[in-house]
């Protein structure tokens, strides 16, 4: 009996002197893994163009039907994205999303990426819908160039599938 108590307390005492693993959330935030799937972001190219071309393949892939894409036609003088099509409306309902990442897999331009933000809480359902403005990264956060051959052609390049990092 006594032996067992001592045995149990030994574990207690051992941990008493160890460094605690508890993180004081929300003051302190634990970094997530590289491949963590959090809230999505819509990426841009280095020149500021939207990567998303409004193809709605993400919406088709989404098992939770969380994504709404309504496409539009780019104004050739001020294109939002390379090619003719762009996403006029892009919305993700974070309450529906199961963070499976299928959308990211489906995207031919690597536009939609599940990033590391996980603090997703809402007071009402409506605010769980992230619009394109909320998802799109700022213009200076672009990365990856449109292949130079297509830029050289000085016209709107056609194959978005080839535009990649």
């Amino acid at each position: 009996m006594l032996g067992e108590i001592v045995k149990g307390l030994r574990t207690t005492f051992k941990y008493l002197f160890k460094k605690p693993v508890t993180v004081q959330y929300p003051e302190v935030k634990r970094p997530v893994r590289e491949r963590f799937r959090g809230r999505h972001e819509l990426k841009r190219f280095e020149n500021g163009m939207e990567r998303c071309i409004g193809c709605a393949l993400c919406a088709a892939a989404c098992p939770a039907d969380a994504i709404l894409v309504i496409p539009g036609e780019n104004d050739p003088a001020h294109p939002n994205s390379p090619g003719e099509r762009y996403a006029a409306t892009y919305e993700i309902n974070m309450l529906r999303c199961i963070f499976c990442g299928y959308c990211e897999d489906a995207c031919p331009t690597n536009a939609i990426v599940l990033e590391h933000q996980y603090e997703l809480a809402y007071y009402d359902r409506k605010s769980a819908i992230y619009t394109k403005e909320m998802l799109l990264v700022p213009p200076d956060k672009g990365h990856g160039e449109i292949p130079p051959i297509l830029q050289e052609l000085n016209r709107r390049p056609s194959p978005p599938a080839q535009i990649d990092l």
Partner: protein
Amino acid sequence: MPDVTLTIDGKTVTVPAGTNIVDAARAGDVAIPVFCYHPKMKAVGMCRMCLVEVYTPKIDPATRQPVIGADGKPELALMMNKLQAGCVTPVSDGMVVKTVGERVEFAQRGVLEFLLTSHPLDCPVCDKGGECPLQNLTMEWGPGNSRYDYADKHHNVKPVALGDLIYLDRERCILCARCVRFQDEIAGDPVLGFDNRGRNWEIISKSEPAFDSKFSGNTTDICPVGALTSSDFRFKARVWELRSTPSVCNHCSVGCDISIDMRYNDLMRVMPRENDFVNEIWTCDKGRYGMRHIMSGERLKTPMIRRNNAWVAATWEEATRYVADRLTLVRANYGANALGGLAGAHLPNEDLYLFGKLFREVLGSNNIDHRRGTPDEPTALDDLPNILGVGAGTNLTTLGKGTAVLVIGADPEEEAPLYVLRLRGIADRGGDLTVVNSYPTKLARFAKSAVTVRPGAEAAFVQALLGAIFAEGSANEALAARLRGADELKRSVSGKPLADLAAAAGVAEATIRAIASSFVAAENGIIVYGRAAVGAGPALTQALANLALVGGKAGRANNGLIALTAEGNTRGALDMGVRPDRGPGGAAVTAGMSAREMWAAAKADTLKGMYIAGMNPAKSNTAVAEALSQLEFLVVQDLFMTETAQLAHVVLPVATVAERDGTFTNAERRVQRFQQARRAEGEAPADWSLFQEVARAVQAMAPASPTAAPAKKSAKARAAESNTAVAVAAPPASWDYLVSSDIADEISARVPGYKGTSYTSLELTRKSWGRQPNESFYYDGTSYENTEGVGVQLPALADDGKSVFQLAYREPAPAAADEQFPLTLLTVVRAYDGGEWMRGSKLVPRTVPAHVILSVADAQQLGVGIGEPVRISSAAGTLELRAQVDAGLSAGVVLLPLVKGADLASVLTGPQTRVSVAKA
């Protein structure tokens, strides 16, 4: 044709001789991939996707006998010692075809790799993505990767406009010429062509204005890649997101089967739905691009009542109660005859039926009509198709050699566009097409003989045909036993020498003889007549009936008359009794006022209240607008705040065709069902449901009897009216229709002829011609297979095989010489007429301002150039319009297109108006 038996991939297939290998394989459920071949068009062998190994029995050159091998079977030789294009190789006996195997696969992969050398592969952007044959064939037969350098692709400026409706992406085009061939072979507007060569080879539009065709949308369907897209659908949605609802176009009397493709509650596009009896796999641009009005922001959303000259929104109950109140009040004060009703003939049968019922049985008035009451409308209503119309089971798609088609007084391109394709198809397959009209039409281009008759001489022309038949003694005896008065007719017609008859018609005697004999000799004969023919008067319709009967061309499938009516459901309106002279199914009633009489009565203050549903008679017609503004009460039920609605006291919004269920009856008397595709704005109900609400409210106000109105003087007359009106059958006392099929059931029970048109029978589909499991190669991204019903064709009276017909002779009116008004003015329909249906449509730029068309001779004589203003004067008044000149028009004829903008009623006196034209 004799049948040929061959073996395809080990399967034995027997097909008619002349079939190509691709079609033969299809019959044997073997898939041969194709790009350029399309079963509706001639094979050209342009893409080489259909390469297969073809073996034919070896022939010994000495004996001309098949060489028998050691195994006792005929020895086979590879045809031409190389692969053959299956679409252009006809089958032959003993042929052995291999569609799989290393050699074929190598070729198929090669063709696809080559097609993709410069293909942008921007499927995520491309509108065809998801229903693209190139995508599908590449997945199934293509190489996994390409040996060509991606950066070497040929680039072009992305979309070029082939016309205002169709855009071409030259990077995606695989130069299969399906679009060019469709325009040449099927639409008959050869406006597309190839330009340049090599890498710069491209499709161009050769016409001015660009891509000038009423069928241009079909090219986007049959293009096997996303090279052709329509401005109406470009980048609106991805095809897999669309929800398709079967519908029927109500823009003309063809009644094409269409599919309304929706995303959520928004219309994305309209596609044709296959129906061999109606539209094959095509639809015209009017049907395809003319449905945007259902999404228009200008649509009425709430009922409105005019109070103190301002519109006040009301609830549905308030509004219908108010309507019932005021209609009852008018009836109480002036009698039921002071009430009139007009319902547009594009409304479905259900609505038209209840409209008639509301007026005849509840309000007790027979003053209803589906016409607008313009002076150029023919006075007589044409019921001939119900008697001698094309027999049940008619299928124009199957007709060709042995069929004579006489098109008289019709311009199908403008009146019912798809008939151009259908009738031209018959001519292409070897049928005899004769086009008779008093002004040039597009269909005449495909006719074996095209005849121009003087306006007014149409009846004389048909009389001359009859004369020729009698003169040659070639009358067809098929119906002889059922004819009465044949001898009198023969005597009256043969009384005059054929030369005189021909001279009266202004057509050479030889031409008349040729047309008459080919019509009588043909196995099947169809007479198509349109607006101008009905306008020419009853002498012509009677003569056409005589011709069909004497020629033995009635009472069976593929024989009889087809009347191209003014609106999509005019046939239905006539059958449902929305007409002053007859009740549903032709029931006898005391004749009420026609639309034209109503305008006169309103002017004379004897018509006091009107109910107008789905019609805008005040448009471009000041006389009618004046008459309407004199009314004590006017309720207008429509989609938009039209010119007529602005004069109303109550406006009731309604649902469009896309927002409700119903049926239409087309020109061939085929009843077809359409289904609800979306919710209406403001929850607007279907027209019939508003009629029902009003009827209920009226009944609640006067529960005893609808005719027990206080006005004594005409009580007896009204009682008589209501008696005859209900003579059809005992009316169910209650108005308790829940869904439109309740009404359809009542229609099929009460309207003779509509028996068997319940929604269940309308939903039956027969397997269309040869749809096979591998059909997607032909149809991917094109017309939808019909799984929702091909409709039911109502039998014509003559179909019963026993009813007898009275032939009658009507003397054609002699040509009237008129010094003061030397010219004859005809109003002609324009497909793009600027009507309410065009709101929000991409077709709006195709509408033309009001103008008048003169012949070259008349224009020269008057010294009028193109675009100059002229003054037209008639007995009715004058009108100033700009002039156009048509080189094909005969002198003495003036055409007035029915488009928005000119007060045409001010100058017209009838279907054919005598006018004089002067330079303004």
